[in-house]
């Protein structure tokens, strides 16, 4: 009765709670009077991942494509060309735009078609629904909320379901969520207590209940709801529903014959569908500079057009210039208003010069990124034999960002370390137990299996020891996989006893349970809520499992309440030392603490174990607290936490365990390389400080000479935060000042480096905006300290704090490029937050890998990823961007100059075909291939010498001075082309037969010089000439010549002009044209070559020195080789 009371109270409190839904199981109305039956409308179970339908594809796709600013710009140019009379035909910009749009549309259409197919196959797969006591087959998409569904073993859940009953007696079922989060372990889900008896279709059909639950939310692990069961005319029985009752769409039923469940979220409202909503787009630094350049060029373009328009009207002020007798306007032209004419002229100039912003650059950049990313997936050195997987590229937009990383945030467990836990020792009341050599799951009977380091405990200790082992055997969520279900592989019978495999989402627990097995206590199974343990005397002990207080990262501990066969209630708790020690009231705290700290320094993961006995009355109280918290619909989390807090106190300490997590292969080497490459490496971990620090030493993040600065709760307890921060910053800055002096004097390059250790609590204190506004100040000081530390360790971090740290660094005033690497679900937030997120395909599921931008099998692969691939991608794309702008300045600037000699009449210098094909075919492939193949330095050297990475730090190849240099080079070359040709053409004959050339020959001459110059410029920049480069560079020059010969060789029947007829051939037949082409190409290339050679000789960068060094070595080698050749031939 009290229970019902409290439910009505809760209900009353929830009157205004609109964010809930009521589901009527089997669409049956509740008994009259209980509640008003309001049929709610829910979406059907259709999954729509496709973006387009057959009808809206064209408009929607076009709309989306033209939302990109570049495409829109080209569309405007194209439309202007269509509408007004412009110098170039609309084809010149329409064709490339059409090409780009079509290719993109085809690609997106194909992808969408695949999605449609996948959707259809999912939406049409059959599901079994109970209707009127019978099983009915239906297509999945027709499933509705409230339907009762039958799912058999190995079937996938068609929508989010509440488990009503299962074929297993205890009302549980096992589920694997591999396709959701990659965790292949079996998870247990529970049926509602009151419905678990409904085991046949008919029985299920009689069930009369409603479910109230929250509206769909994307969080996979959170669910709050309540089921009201109407057994008779009385008040309904209400039961809480949690995530342990909720079967998620996409998960698969395992080890359970069949279940009955009711659909509560369908179609696009399932948690899986909500989670597939795309991540935010990340943009690379290169892309940002590209956009900045684009704006510069847009300004140049507009100012060019403006200048020319103004000059045109100044020049035309004389009517004899505007309209000489030989060149009259049409009547309509004359009558046009001057402003309209001026505006049209402005637009026409825009069109004439619009090629300065090339549509093809976007295509080339996209292609470079897309194709280039294959080199990562193809990389043999990043392939892991063990996993059978290589690197994965989830987005190719960030390739070059890999070469720009300044801060690396790494997770510890599973990333730096193997996450392959091994039980090392345990300590009971200060006595240390170490199991024998590793014996794979082998059971060693008796006490022979352990070495007692300390003296044998007394009788009181004996009791604690037994309790300790039992505690570890009981306090966990490990499942036992019976041998026949182990992936089809028979683990078999060993020594006459069935061995079983332990499965858990936490590897620590498995290690602990296995460790216990080696110490003589074997956890057998959980049967009918009873946990069975085989003790050292081969007796089976049974404990009734009453409550599990699950682990969470805030409490950092878990507890179980069990009832022993003798009827005693025990609460066993295990957790992090900081989570357990404050709650301990007796036990040998000092000894255990000493041992824990000792182990932590060794780099072991430690857990403390404590217990308390409960009287039946106390147990009742606990039970009540828990169930009332669990039933709460609002703030259930908070209420549960409060309940846990009040239950888990007054412990008696038993002991501690130590588990080792080995460092990953070459983790130290990788970290060292990253350091040398100028990156700051931060380790963000939830582990305790000592453990984490030990790992950091082991992985060479901290070296012996690193001065450790601590910013921990321990210190801030002694001093206040303010003083500590100022202290540290003073230390760091003094050192920093002296360091710069040293480097200036060039005396010493060996300097003392700092490592900072900060813990989660202090961090939140630092970040907390304080009342008097000094919070921002703290943040600045903290950042200042961090900036001067080569390594930072953040321990005791909650997942969200990791993201906060990344955000903090990202927002600091230098805006450094950050990279986050991690393997677990707790790293996802920081992976998503950082500029580049890298997931490790580790043991803790694939969630990190799925949410990352790149996924690699092991931490050591980060080295090649950044130092080689990142470096290459960066130099490739930066050259690509600079070169593209350069070649279009070269291309368009002569047209601009020509306007001064043709009365600002927008007369194009080049023929339409040249205008169209310049960027599409004459100069496109060499730069694309360069941007795929270029290796300015051998990859082995890049790997060996990480300091080369510093040469490209801070987007150094795309800085403004370099951009201006390229632009000026382009302008210079354009001036050379134009005025070179101008002076040659000026009032003289070019041929040996006295005949004259016209304007198209002039343009063709300039264009030929242009094509040769820009291609050869690229050839001079290429450091890695494979046969493909040769083929493409010489091939595109050849293609230009062949095309020109062909283009001018025929009277083209469908063209209304034949202006290029024989122009190219006539030009080639003239000696001075050849001579001037050679001369102008040489003059255009000369300054760049001189600049390069001088810079290399006088101010070489590290990269250039390395290149030279290799050069010398190889020439020496070849000389030696030649010498030996000659000597051998002589001796022969």
């Amino acid at each position, binding site marked *: 009765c009290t229970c019902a009371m409290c439910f009505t109270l809760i209900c009353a409190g929830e009157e205004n709670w609109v964010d809930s839904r009521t589901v009527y199981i089997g669409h049956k109305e509740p008994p009259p009077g209980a509640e008003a039956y309001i049929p709610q409308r829910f979406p059907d179970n259709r999954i729509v991942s496709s973006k387009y339908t057959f009808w809206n594809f064209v408009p929607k796709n076009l709309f989306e494509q033209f939302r990109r600013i570049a495409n829109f710009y080209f569309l405007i140019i194209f439309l202007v060309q269509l509408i007004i009379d412009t110098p170039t035909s609309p084809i010149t910009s329409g064709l490339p735009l059409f090409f780009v749009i079509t290719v993109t549309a085809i690609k997106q259409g194909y992808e969408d078609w695949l999605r449609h197919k996948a959707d259809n196959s999912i939406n049409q797969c059959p599901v079994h629904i109970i209707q009127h006591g019978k099983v009915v087959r239906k297509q999945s998409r027709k499933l509705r909320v409230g339907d009762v569904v039958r799912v058999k073993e190995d079937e996938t859940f068609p929508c989010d379901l509440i488990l009503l009953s299962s074929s297993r007696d205890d009302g549980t079922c096992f589920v694997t969520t591999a396709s959701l989060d990659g965790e292949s372990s079996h998870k247990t889900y529970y049926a509602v207590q009151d419905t678990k008896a409904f085991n046949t279709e008919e029985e299920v059909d009689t069930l009369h209940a409603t479910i109230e639950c929250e509206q769909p939310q994307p969080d996979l692990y959170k669910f709050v709801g309540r089921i009201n069961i109407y057994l008779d005319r009385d008040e309904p029985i209400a039961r809480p529903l949690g995530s342990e009752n909720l079967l998620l769409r996409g998960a698969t039923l395992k080890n359970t014959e069949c279940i009955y469940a009711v659909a509560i979220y369908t179609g696009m409202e399932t948690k899986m569908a909500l989670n597939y909503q795309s991540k935010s787009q990340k943009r690379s630094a290169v892309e940002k500079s590209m956009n900045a350049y684009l704006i510069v060029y847009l300004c140049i373009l507009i100012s060019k057009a403006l200048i020319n328009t103004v000059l045109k009207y100044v020049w035309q002020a004389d009517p004899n210039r505007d309209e000489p007798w030989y060149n009259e306007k049409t009547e309509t032209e004359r009558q046009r208003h001057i402003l309209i004419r001026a505006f049209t002229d402005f637009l026409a100039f825009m069109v004439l010069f619009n090629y300065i912003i090339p549509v093809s650059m976007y295509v080339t950049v996209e292609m470079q990124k897309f194709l280039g990313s294959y080199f990562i997936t193809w990389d043999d050195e990043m392939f892991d034999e063990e996993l059978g997987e290589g690197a994965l590229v989830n987005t190719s937009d960030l390739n070059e960002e890999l070469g720009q990383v300044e801060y690396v945030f790494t997770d510890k467990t599973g990333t730096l370390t193997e996450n392959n836990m091994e039980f090392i020792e345990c300590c009971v009341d200060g006595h240390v137990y170490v199991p024998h050599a590793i014996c794979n799951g082998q059971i060693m009977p008796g006490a022979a299996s352990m070495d007692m380091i300390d003296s044998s405990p007394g009788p009181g200790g004996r009791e604690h020891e037994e309790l300790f082992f039992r505690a570890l055997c009981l306090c966990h969520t490990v499942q036992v996989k019976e041998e026949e279900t182990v992936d089809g592989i028979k683990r078999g019978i060993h020594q006459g006893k069935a061995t079983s495999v332990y499965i858990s989402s936490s590897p620590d627990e498995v290690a602990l349970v296995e460790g216990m097995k080696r110490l003589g206590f074997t956890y057998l199974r959980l049967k009918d809520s009873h946990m069975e343990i085989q003790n050292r005397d081969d007796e089976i002990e049974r404990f009734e499992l009453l409550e599990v207080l699950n682990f969470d990262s805030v409490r950092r501990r878990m507890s179980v309440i069990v009832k022993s066969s003798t009827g005693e209630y025990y609460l066993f708790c295990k957790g992090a030392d900081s989570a357990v020690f404050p709650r301990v009231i007796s036990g040998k705290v000092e000894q255990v603490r000493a041992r824990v700290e000792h182990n932590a320094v060794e780099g072991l993961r430690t857990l403390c174990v404590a217990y308390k006995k409960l009287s039946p009355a106390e147990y009742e109280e606990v039970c009540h607290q828990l169930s009332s918290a669990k039933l709460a619909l609002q703030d259930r989390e908070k209420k549960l936490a409060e309940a846990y807090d009040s239950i888990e106190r007054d412990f008696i300490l038993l002991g501690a365990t130590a588990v080792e997590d080995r460092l990953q292969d070459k983790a130290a080497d990788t970290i060292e390389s990253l350091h040398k490459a100028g990156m700051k490496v931060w380790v963000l971990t939830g582990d305790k400080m000592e453990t984490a620090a030990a790992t950091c030493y082991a992985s060479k993040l901290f070296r012996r000479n690193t001065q450790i600065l601590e910013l921990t709760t321990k210190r801030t307890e002694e001093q206040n935060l303010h003083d500590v921060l100022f202290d540290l910053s003073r230390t760091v800055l003094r050192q920093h000042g002296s360091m710069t002096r040293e480097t200036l004097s060039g005396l010493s390059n060996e300097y003392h480096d700092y490592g900072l250790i900060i813990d989660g609590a202090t961090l939140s204190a630092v970040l907390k905006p304080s009342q008097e506004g000094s919070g921002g100040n703290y943040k600045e000081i903290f950042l200042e300290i961090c900036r001067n530390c080569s390594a930072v360790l953040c321990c005791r971090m909650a997942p969200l704090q990791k993201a906060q740290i990344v955000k903090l660094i990202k927002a600091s005033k230098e805006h450094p490029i950050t990279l986050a690497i991690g393997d677990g679900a707790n790293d996802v937030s920081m992976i998503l937050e950082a500029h580049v997120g890298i997931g490790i395909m580790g043991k803790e599921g694939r969630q990190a890998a799925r949410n990352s931008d790149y996924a690699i099998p092991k931490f050591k692969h980060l080295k090649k990823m950044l130092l080689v691939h990142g470096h290459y991608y960066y130099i490739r794309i930066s050259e690509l961007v600079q070169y593209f702008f350069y070649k279009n300045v070269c291309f368009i600037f002569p047209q601009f100059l020509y306007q001064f*000699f043709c009365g600002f009449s927008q007369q194009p210098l080049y023929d339409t075909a040249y205008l169209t094909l310049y960027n599409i075919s004459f100069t496109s492939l060499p730069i694309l291939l360069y941007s795929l193949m270029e290796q300015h330095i051998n990859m082995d050297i890049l790997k060996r010498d990480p300091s080369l990475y510093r040469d490209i730090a801070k987007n150094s190849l795309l800085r403004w001075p370099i951009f201006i240099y390229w632009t000026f080079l382009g302008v210079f070359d354009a001036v050379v082309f134009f005025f070179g040709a101008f002076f040659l053409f000026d009032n003289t*004959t070019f041929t040996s037969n006295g005949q004259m050339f016209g*304007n198209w020959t002039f343009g063709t001459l300039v264009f030929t010089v242009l094509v040769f110059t820009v291609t050869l410029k690229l050839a001079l920049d290429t450091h890695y000439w494979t046969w493909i480069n040769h083929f493409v560079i010489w091939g595109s020059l050849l293609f230009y010549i062949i095309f020109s010969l062909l283009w001018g060789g025929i009277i083209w029947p469908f063209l209304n002009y034949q202006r290029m007829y024989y122009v190219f051939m006539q030009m080639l037949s003239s000696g001075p044209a050849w001579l001037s082409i050679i001369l102008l190409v040489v003059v255009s290339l000369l300054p760049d070559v001189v600049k390069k050679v001088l810079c290399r000789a006088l101010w070489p960068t590290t990269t250039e020195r390395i290149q030279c060094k290799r050069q010398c070595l190889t020439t020496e080698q070849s000389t030696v080789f030649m010498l030996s050749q000659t000597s051998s031939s002589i001796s022969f």
Partner: protein
Amino acid sequence: MMASSYSAKEEDGHHPGASGAGGAAANGRKPDNTAFKQQRLPAWQPILTAGTVLPAFFAIGLIFIPIGIGLYVTSNNIKEFEIDYTGTDTSSPCFSCYQNFSWNSTLPCKCSLPFSLDQPFESNVFMYYGLSNFYQNHRRYVKSRDDSHLNGNLYSLTHPSKECEPYAHRDNVPVAPCGAIANSMFNDTMELFFVHPNETRSQIPLKRKGIAWWTDKHVKFRNPGGNGDNLTAAFQGTTYPVNWHKPVYELDADPENNGFINEDFIVWMRTAALPTFRKLYRIIEKKSSMTPTLPSGNYTLEVTYNYPVHSFDGRKRMILSTISWMGGKNPFLGIAYITVGSVCFFLGVVLLLIHHKYGNRSSSPDIAS
């Protein structure tokens, strides 16, 4: 030219151990081990350093300077004579023609200009007319033509392209040839007389063929209905451009040089690149190897002054020039070659110094830092 090194890295591309051991677990994810996919294609890796570029600079210097000198000398040996006959100056014989030009006058205005050549022109002499401040490259002008019309297409003949406006129709009769270019065809005629010391004049024969591109005359330009003899009939239903005095089929008496394939017309139709230009007018062929084509002495240029340039401040010139293998007189190319060659040579020397001073430093292996 550039230092090079071939790094043969194909061997590195194949790790026999990796493929052997992993063969058992050869799932589809295992990347292929080709040199291309591992980015280890054999490659030539040149680097531009002072040492490697040096020889190239010296070579360019050594090649360019002689070429430049050769070009300069050739250019200087070319004889060129230019006379401005616009008549802007009151003292000029063509002043009255310049002043009193009217489109309606039926009587051609003639003027004759005396000039003398100090040196004989030995080889073939090419006679050009030059115009200044005439924007043949104005966009409205350049596109004001119809190439299919000029190619003898019968449909285009009577339906000139829109581009030809406002020179496409005259009183609703299609104009042939249409467009601004054709309309403004240069129509001054020039005759050249040698004035013997005894004051008698002998006309110098001017060849009017071979002044247009062969391909233009034979392919690109064609009379309607083939180059048949009855051009008058072929141009039936069209009228001549407004600024012309005679129809297109009366340009020349010679049927091979009449109508659209008149070479003067073709030359004019090739629009010049710059507002100051010259176009080939006539060729004076060398008759015998003994006497120069144009001996030194006095000449008279008889101009029929039809072409008005007064309104746009234009100038008209007559140019006589001999031609070498590198075309007309153009000292620019030679000077440019000499300059570039010398600059390269000079840079070569500078680089040599730099290479000696810094070369060892930059290639020294002390790059441990």
